[in-house]
């Protein structure tokens, strides 16, 4: 099917069996109105369909028998894949992940080596010091110590959780989630032009998917139709752009937004860049974009220019999730400059594969030959960010185990 992704890049089977980890536990259940999601810190795409539904869609796609629902699903894959591309190409999106990772890396209320001596588990740890490790008493006390540590950790997590946050990870990484909450506020702030940072990130993904799948002919009618079904954050960019450049919208929206995402404040940079492209002499974006990009610093209101992801990465050497991808982009293995990878949907067809995790509601696979262990590690990271694990569930389990232990002690003491 023209204009749709090569689904085989998402189809690579992965060995899902593991004796110690059930990676299905890391999969986030999405709200029913969410079609899909890209979690950029871990680089994982999650589709809100079952594995069976996905496989059935893929079978119809391969026979060129797609239904309207299939087209929606493929459009969602293209939308989320574009967020992956934004992350590995644009300076703003890559720096966004690096900054979040830096905070994540140094933030946990749980620490292996910080057991207060006066805590119950601290006292038990002291008692363990005098015992033979092979003795039954050591084994028993060791298990109880572990249980008490869990109980104490849960207390810390609950104390650090934001009001109403019942997740395990929300309270375990409070600074990280406070950072994400602040980021969400900042990215949702709408300026006098009616644009927010999020509206640029999302609006470009909507336009990209439409251009990739349907080209420029009939673009505006298709965008109008899709925008009528989406919340305003997805349609604002199109509406503002359409108001400013009319029938050049399909030509200029992605290049202007791709350039804006080279800047620290894409929301403020977008309109000046768009105006510069409209006013550029040749009226051919292939020629005009490099000229405008060269004088980005001088455009009014654009602010700090970050460049591309490959420019930003040297400042954040600890964040390695996208290292192989950035190496490929830097060496031109994807056949296009990062700007055009974002600005021209046709360049996506030259990308050999998209190395990201790809999840359905009940299945997972590594796209682009992603190694299984790396995929599972990234799924775990995703599960932290999306707060998959319930603190309430863990508290209940630990309470029940402690109750069973106490019951066992009583039985032993009373000889019952």
């Amino acid at each position, binding site marked *: 099917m023209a204009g749709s992704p090569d689904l085989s890049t998402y189809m690579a089977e992965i060995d899902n069996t593991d004796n110690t980890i059930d990676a299905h536990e890391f999969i986030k259940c999405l*709200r029913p109105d969410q*079609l899909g999601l*890209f979690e*950029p810190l871990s680089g994982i795409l999650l589709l809100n369909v079952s594995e069976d539904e996905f496989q059935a869609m893929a079978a119809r796609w391969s026979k060129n028998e797609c239904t309207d629902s299939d087209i*929606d699903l493929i459009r969602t894959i293209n939308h989320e894949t574009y967020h992956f591309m934004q992350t590995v190409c644009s300076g703003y999106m890559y720096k966004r992940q690096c900054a979040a990772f830096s905070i994540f890396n140094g933030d946990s209320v749980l620490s292996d080596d910080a057991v207060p001596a006066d805590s119950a588990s601290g006292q038990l740890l002291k008692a363990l010091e005098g015992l033979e490790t092979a003795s039954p008493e050591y084994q028993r006390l060791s298990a109880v110590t572990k249980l008490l540590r869990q109980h104490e950790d849960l207390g810390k997590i609950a104390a650090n959780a934001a009001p109403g946050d*019942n997740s395990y990870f929300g309270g375990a990484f409070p600074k990280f989630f406070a950072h994400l909450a602040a980021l969400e506020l900042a990215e949702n702030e709408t300026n006098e032009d009616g644009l927010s940072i999020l509206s640029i990130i999302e609006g470009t993904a909507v336009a990209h998917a439409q251009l990739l799948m349907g080209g420029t002919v009939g673009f505006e009618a298709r965008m109008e139709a899709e925008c009528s*079904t*989406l919340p305003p954050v*997805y349609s604002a960019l199109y509406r503002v752009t359409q108001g400013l450049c009319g029938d050049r919208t399909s030509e200029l929206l992605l290049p202007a937004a791709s350039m804006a995402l080279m800047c620290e404040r894409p929301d403020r940079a977008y309109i000046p860049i768009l105006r510069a492209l409209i006013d550029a002499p040749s009226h051919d974006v292939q020629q005009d974009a490099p000229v405008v990009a060269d004088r980005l610093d001088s455009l009014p209101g654009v602010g700090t220019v970050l460049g591309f992801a490959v420019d930003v990465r040297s400042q954040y050497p600890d964040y390695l999730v996208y290292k192989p991808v950035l190496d490929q982009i830097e060496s031109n293995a994807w056949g296009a400059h990062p700007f055009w990878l974002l600005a021209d949907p046709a360049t996506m067809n030259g990308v050999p594969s998209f190395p990201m995790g790809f999840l359905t509601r009940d299945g997972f696979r590594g796209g682009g030959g992603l190694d299984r262990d790396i995929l599972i590690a990234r799924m775990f990271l995703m599960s932290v960010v999306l707060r998959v*694990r319930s603190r309430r569930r863990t508290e209940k389990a630990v309470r029940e185990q402690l109750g069973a232990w106490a019951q066992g002690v009583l039985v032993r003491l009373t000889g019952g």
Partner: protein
Amino acid sequence: MQKFTTQNEFLNALSTHWQSQPSTTAAHTTDAAILDALRAGVQQADTDVRQEEQSRDGALGLRIGGWIIRPEDLPVLDAISVGAAAAAAAFGPGGMTAVAVVAAVSGFASLCWKAWRKGASLSPDEVAVLGFLKLHGPMALEDLKKMAAAQLDGFSEDRVELSLKSLRDVELLNGDLVDLVRIDESGRWRARPI
């Protein structure tokens, strides 16, 4: 997956689904008052749930602005309809007043749909027992087991008790654990709003 632009279109599709079930199935509902009550209950739940915003946690998701019915919603909708139809049949002449039945059906539909949309994974058994409790009001455990086993198609007392147990440990999308049923001060079981 079916998509709708307005809440009214979404509710109309639900009514059509409930009416279009084969008349031999328990999910078939034609009683206009019961249909209206089911519809009002789902509408209330839908309005409440849509007002609750969820944090994005930095993720970039594609959400639609309209209303949807997913294939996995259908068994839950059917179970709600079954529960409502059973109630209507149980409260015949001399039982609860029609107004009270309609109010109870609406409250039951609202409770189930809200729990489902918030991520509670409810089985048809759980929906049936929850509906029975919601519609009949607070009951002692033994009475509940006996009555539900007698009136709910194919239910044993053990099956009722098992559903009650799981209704006290329901995990939502936001990680919260909720009880959809509780024991009140008089020792009777009752449905609990979330």
